[in-house]
């Protein structure tokens, strides 16, 4: 069988199996068993179609994720990434109501700008370069797609406030905490009270005076002590670091100041300990930042590139 014909067959199965009412599992199993290449072609078709998701979704998977995670039911197990399928499987359950339970809306800020919102007993100060989803029908949930926000939560035992960050869930226990998410990692720093990390799964409790950092792959997690007054310090242009990689600092600074930093891989993981201050004097800031961090900062094509200092002979 030619590769093209097999690919077409695989595509056919990929489309059909994704249908909510698909029930021909026996036939699907037999097709998969007929040739190991069938399963590979099937996964290739799935991966290819999933690659288009970021471009398709003007409202990203959040809407379906909310539907899948109704308060008293936990659909996450159906497959955290299979959001569209989770929503369609819900249709198989007799008691699921047809009315939409969510009405999400997006707040997006440009780097260097901020926005404050107050919903349902929560004050949210949103930093720059941030995309955060809230919900008209559920004021006790927020989803951080990227960026940073400082949360001041009035605790309600019956309706805990939950922040979703990718596949993780943070639940307040009467708190003030800051959440950051960028391409490399997620951080939660707690100033007051405590936050439960993934209450249904790991259930790690992050108390005031602690910060949790998790890398993008979820493979390494670090719980560090922090000074509570440094939480949300970005509001005053103060950034306190302990052995923090330059790449993280650059992301923080771009988000908060609007200055477009880019980091050369050669210095990305270089650790810095100290405090960076920004007081709106861009010129002075850029002149002093390099020596402070021990790096070279030079403009190129509208961005500020952070790289290793030159060793001048």
């Amino acid at each position, binding site marked *: 069988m030619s590769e093209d014909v097999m690919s077409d067959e695989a*595509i056919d199965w990929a489309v059909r199996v994704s249908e909510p009412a698909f029930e021909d599992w026996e036939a699907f*199993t037999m097709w998969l068993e007929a040739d190991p290449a069938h399963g590979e072609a099937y996964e290739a078709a799935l991966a290819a179609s999933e690659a288009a998701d970021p471009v*398709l*979704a003007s409202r990203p998977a959040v809407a379906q994720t909310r539907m899948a995670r109704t308060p008293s039911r936990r659909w996450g197990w159906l497959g955290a990434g299979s959001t569209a399928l989770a929503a369609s499987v819900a249709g198989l359950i007799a008691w699921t109501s047809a009315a939409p339970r969510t009405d999400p809306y997006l707040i997006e800020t440009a780097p260097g700008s901020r926005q404050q919102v107050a919903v349902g007993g929560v004050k949210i100060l949103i930093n720059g370069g941030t995309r955060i989803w809230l919900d008209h029908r559920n004021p006790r949930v927020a989803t951080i797609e990227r960026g940073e926000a400082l949360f001041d939560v009035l605790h309600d035992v019956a309706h805990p406030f939950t922040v979703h960050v*990718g596949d993780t869930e943070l639940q307040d226990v009467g708190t003030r905490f800051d959440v950051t998410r960028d391409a490399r990692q*997620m951080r939660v720093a707690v100033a007051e009270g405590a936050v439960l990390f993934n209450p249904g799964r790991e259930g790690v409790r992050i108390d005031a005076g602690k910060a949790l950092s998790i890398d993008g792959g979820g493979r390494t997690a670090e719980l560090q002590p922090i000074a509570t007054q440094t939480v949300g310090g970005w509001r005053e242009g103060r950034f306190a670091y302990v052995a923090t990689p330059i790449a993280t600092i650059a992301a923080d600074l771009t988000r908060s100041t609007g200055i477009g930093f880019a980091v050369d891989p050669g210095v990305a993981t270089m650790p810095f300990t100290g405090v960076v201050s920004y007081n709106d004097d861009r010129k002075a800031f850029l002149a002093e930042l390099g020596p402070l961090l021990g790096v070279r900062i030079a403009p190129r094509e509208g961005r500020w590139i952070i790289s290793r200092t030159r060793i001048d002979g």
Partner: protein
Amino acid sequence: MHGPGSQGLQTVFMAHRNALLRFLIARGAADAAEDILQELWVRVEATAVGPIQNPAAYLYRAAENLMRDRHRAERQAHLREQHWAEVAGPTDQGVSDAPTSERSLIAREELAGIQRLLRSFPSRTQEAFRLHRIEGMAQRDIAARLGVSLSTIEKDLRDIYRELVTVRAQHFRSETGDSVNGGKDGS
């Protein structure tokens, strides 16, 4: 912790246990199939569910989702080893931005290429694909929504999938010098 329907579901699970195992193996679970089946049951049991119209299909669907997640996780791990995720890039209009998912690991050029590809299709086809992928809508319902025949939608979706598969295969060939999909090198 046990939902009202879980006794009946357990009976169905036991009746279909071998078939489900066979399915998982066919989907590429290999030696992990028994473990995955166990994981499936633990999760099904822990979830409080109401009456299910087709319990067997429900279990297969859960198994399929688990296998999709596993394959996706493998792909992400592979991509992470190959790409350097951008630190603080500007937000692109119209492109969703979830950094720790596979999305950030697909280079921006590849995403731009996919965007161009999708836009080369008529808007009805694009909408059909969006309803299919993002809203999980049945083809029959998509056809009704867009006012065309079911066979039109079936063709539309397969056309887009075919193009996306081609683009992805080309991307991997140019990136790694060989096909990730294990097939013979084409052309």
